[in-house]
């Protein structure tokens, strides 16, 4: 067989996929299925799963609602400082989540913004609201990036035709751009949800890792590893993997079905 560059690339990709697959599979192989099921039924796991899904849904909804105008502005808008806005929005993807958590803790704890929000009766630091806020800022850059490239891929002439037929900017966005971006919005929602439900560092710093208070699945994993309760830790890991797998599979399916 001829050793071509393409074959070498295929071999490298298969090798590392295999290692990753073995690492993930070991989570499913090490514990006994009975122990996993028992762990999933404990009050701690039920609480953690419910809180994770609820906060991730709220954070995803907020992130997508904000990412649509931000992504549209970065894609179609032309304004001074656009490059800086893009870099700052992307920044949380590049630095550790713990740093993001620390920055949010300082913002909501020590600054005027934090004090104004607290004066309005909303407490962010070490509360469930803090979980949502931390997840929101963790997921937002991913949502913005996906939506920005979605809007980039839509031919601007669709909007020009709609405008020429009597529709203003917002009506055109609602009638033409949003329906054309449908698949991208779904994809962004799924990836953002997966990112939110898996957020750990930022949640730990901003909302704290309090047992059955601000305990979401990654915190459950962390707390149980700390106590030496490996079964519970692995069970929460399995739940997180299953959620991520479902998200990625749906994302791939939507990408293949992109008809526009």
């Amino acid at each position, binding site marked *: 067989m001829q050793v071509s560059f393409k074959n070498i690339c295929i071999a490298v990709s298969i090798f590392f996929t295999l290692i990753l697959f073995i690492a993930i599979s070991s989570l499913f192989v090490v514990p006994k299925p009975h122990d996993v099921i028992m762990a999933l039924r404990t009050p701690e796991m039920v609480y953690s799963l419910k809180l994770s899904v609820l906060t991730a849904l709220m954070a995803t909804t907020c992130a997508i609602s904000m990412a649509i105008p931000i992504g549209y502005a970065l894609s179609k808008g032309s304004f001074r400082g656009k490059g800086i806005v893009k870099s700052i929005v992307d920044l949380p993807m590049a630095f550790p989540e713990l740093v993001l958590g620390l920055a949010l803790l300082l913002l909501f704890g020590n600054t005027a913004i934090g004090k104004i929000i607290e004066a309005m009766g909303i407490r962010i630091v070490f509360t469930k609201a803090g979980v949502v806020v931390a997840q929101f800022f963790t997921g937002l850059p991913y949502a913005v990036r996906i939506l920005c490239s979605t809007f980039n891929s839509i*031919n601007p*002439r*669709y909007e*020009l*035709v*709609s*405008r*020429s*037929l*009597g*529709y*203003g900017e917002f009506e055109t966005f609602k*009638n*033409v751009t949003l*329906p*054309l971006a*449908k698949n991208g919005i779904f994809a962004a929602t799924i990836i953002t949800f997966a990112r939110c439900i898996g957020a750990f560092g930022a949640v730990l710093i901003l909302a704290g890792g309090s047992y059955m208070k601000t305990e979401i699945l990654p915190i459950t994993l962390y707390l149980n590893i700390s106590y030496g309760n490996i079964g519970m830790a692995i069970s929460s890991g399995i739940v997180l993997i299953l959620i991520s797998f479902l998200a990625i599979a749906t994302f791939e399916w939507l990408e293949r079905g992109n*008809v*526009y």
Partner: protein
Amino acid sequence: MFIKIVHLSIDLKDFQLRNVNLDIEKGDYVVIIGPTGSGKSVILETIAGFYTPEAGKIILEGQDITHFPPEKRNMSIVYQDYMLFPHMTVYENIAYGLKKTSDKDHIEKEVKTIASLLKIEHLLHRLPGTLSGGECQRTAIARALVVKPRLLLMDEPFSALDIKTKKELRQLVKTALKEYQTTTIHITHDLDDVWHLATKVVMIRKGRVLQIGPPEHIFTNPTDDFVANFVGANRS
């Protein structure tokens, strides 16, 4: 004068349109010709309101519309690549521009009339993704004409079509424009479009207008060698 373009200049960083002057009478079929990158589409999209000119004016029926947004100009645009909304049926695409101003019965009547004129009434329930190039372009023209625009702008509408479809569509467009009495600006590099449709020709190169006149005049009296070479005429 129906439409008057006075000293129009636009700067798009990598392209400049300089001092374009053009007078169009009601009912004219103006064809703008020129090589690729000469600024034909920029002129069209500036008239449509998609670019703001640095200098100059666009006067439509005595009204200065230079700074009007596209939705306030009552001009329709047809592109080479159709730009049919893929999530709407042919019927919904054609009805789109009427939905803002008309009731359901009026929309249905108008859509059926134009669909019959352009021979696409059997396609009304279909999605654009299932149509041929000629069917897509007929739908795009129907969508543009059904709103009875003051000015129809067409950017190389027949370029993506085969010779037979092109010929049929030219005839259909001619009939439809006569019926709707629409003034038209059409961009092309196909001289057949000039011969079959134009009442006035504008020759443009590198953002500058080189010659304006009736087709016979451009072909028989080109002002310079470039125009002569482009239209394949001999310069006397």
